[in-house]
């Protein structure tokens, strides 16, 4: 085994040997299976067959149309009402199926997995907890002293810890994907074909469910990596995991509000959270004027370099003192 690989191995052992890590996975598994069971009970499940899907879709559209009209009569909403838009989108999608003569898919494991992309915020949360603990815990346990008196530079130790955190995120992500597919398959079965219709740059398009699933997970990974790296930095700076978890989770939850609050300032587009959602450029509605994909990626890279550089400087230069 290579030396660096052994360091990673050490870190993963220290992580997975603890019960608290297993509890994380049990909670995740409970969430996924619970969501599958709930979806199964409450969603009556449309059942399209090759004979009836056209009439089914037309029936749905009629119902949606009526629903929208009733809603407008009752509440007299604005031009840009969320509920109206949602119904309209669904009708557009149904029309797309009809026009292009594509049979829509019944709900299945892949669709379920794709819908679970939101669970990535739970994965982010768990990774933040792990990232916040990896350095701070060694200080809390006092084992940092034994860790840093080996013939290995502090930079390499820090890198091994950082990579181990990312590895944890990857393992957890694969766990969510796999368990979603498995429990989706058990509750709903797998789709017959993987074709689906999505909105891209404001237009409906045909694509594969697998691509769609992976890309919706992929976009969220940006946020995961940024917040994880941030928590890692805070824990290196303050050597305190609770503080790092607190700040990182607070920012993660309030990120959008922060951006909203400062929206009309010129510098608002430089806020980290205005740039973490790269999907805003594929769906075609960027948060603020003048923002492009390149702009956001540049901002993200700058933040990332700052997080990593601060962590590295603080970890390699500072005294490991008793208090």
């Amino acid at each position: 085994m290579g030396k660096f690989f052994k360091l990673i191995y050490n870190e993963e052992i220290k992580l997975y040997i603890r019960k608290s890590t297993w509890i994380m996975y049990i909670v995740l598994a409970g969430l996924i299976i619970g969501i599958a069971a709930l979806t199964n009970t409450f969603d009556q499940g449309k059942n399209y067959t090759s004979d009836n899907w056209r009439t089914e879709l037309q029936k749905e559209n009629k119902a949606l149309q009526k629903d929208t009209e009733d809603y407008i009569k009752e509440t007299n909403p604005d031009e840009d009402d969320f509920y109206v838009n949602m119904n309209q989108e669904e009708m557009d999608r149904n029309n797309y199926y009809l026009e292009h003569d594509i049979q829509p898919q019944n709900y299945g494991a892949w669709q379920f997995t794709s819908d679970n992309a939101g669970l990535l915020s739970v994965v982010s949360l768990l990774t933040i907890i792990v990232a916040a603990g990896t350095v701070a815990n060694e200080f809390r346990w006092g084992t940092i002293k034994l860790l840093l008196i080996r013939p290995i530079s502090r930079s390499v130790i820090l890198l091994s810890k950082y990579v181990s955190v990312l590895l944890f995120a990857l393992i957890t992500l694969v766990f969510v994907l796999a368990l979603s597919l498995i429990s989706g398959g058990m509750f709903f079965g797998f789709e017959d074909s993987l074709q689906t219709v999505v909105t891209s740059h404001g237009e409906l398009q045909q694509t594969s469910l697998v691509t769609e699933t992976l890309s919706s997970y992929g976009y969220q990974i940006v946020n995961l990596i940024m917040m994880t790296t941030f928590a890692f930095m805070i824990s290196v700076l303050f050597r305190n995991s609770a503080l790092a978890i607190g700040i990182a989770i607070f920012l993660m939850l309030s990120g959008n509000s922060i951006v909203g609050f400062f929206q009309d300032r010129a510098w608002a587009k430089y806020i980290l959270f205005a740039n973490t959602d790269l999907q805003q450029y594929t769906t075609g509605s960027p948060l603020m004027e003048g923002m492009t994909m390149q702009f956001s990626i540049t901002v993200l890279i700058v933040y990332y370099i700052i997080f990593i550089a601060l962590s590295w400087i603080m970890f390699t230069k500072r005294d490991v003192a008793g208090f």
Partner: protein
Amino acid sequence: MAEFAMELIHTKKRIGQKEIIKGLSFQIKKGEVFGFIGPNGAGKTTTIRMMVGLMNITSGDILIQGNSIKTKFKEAIKEVGAIVENPEMYPFMTGWQNLMHYARMSSDVTKERVHEVVALVGLEKAINQKVGRYSLGMRQRLGIAQALLSYPSILILDEPTNGLDPAGIREIRQYIRRIAEEEQVSVIISSHLLSEIEMMCDRIGIIKNGELITIESVRAAVGESEKEKELLMMQVEAAPIDKAINLLQAKHSIKAVREEKMLVFQTEKENVPSIIKTLVEQDIAIYQAGVAKKSLEDKFFDLIGENTIG
């Protein structure tokens, strides 16, 4: 090959405005057991943290087998095994898992070596228990095992007797002497209680308020018991006392300390007549002269007193 196992060259440590270590210079010889003694807060742990690179050295340097811990960290630290302050290990892992964790961090440590160090500290029975359930003595031993893993030539133990009962202290003492002989290492062992470690040391360095007060040999090659009898802690009431202190320094190279009206110093028995003679010849009045019960007793410690860093 470097002449000394370790060499401190005017090592200073300042934290904020406070100078905690005020220019320490001394050497650790190859294969010796060196006792590093001082009251709580004297700066033992701070010095040890600098020796192993946990703390930056404000000025001066520390050489380990000739390599500076500042500029040649990897080469220097390769020679060292250490416990700094408490023997902290991962409480949720077994003793064995803890040792394997550190074994993987050095390139030359095999499983056989891990078994070997476990046997050396006598932890075979408990090695598969979680460290969280270890007693302090067991953790201390596991700490020593960990420090020995990668065949160090210098073993640094910071207060290994702290918190142990007399039986535990006796055990540690035996291990350390045995390890020093079997593993051919220099041992630096710190304590705030002279009596707890003097018996296993070859030399003792005394530190107070971040300064080295004295270095004494306590144990020559001839053999422990014999040597111990010869080394006396003298108490002499003399006047004028300052002149007496200077005389001892000048004529006998003895560093004496003043304790109220008494002059306290340590010397070998055969030197006592000539010392008294020197004092008398130089018109120093001697009112009483005596020997403290044991060689380097706690008494010596009373005289050094507590730290006055404020």
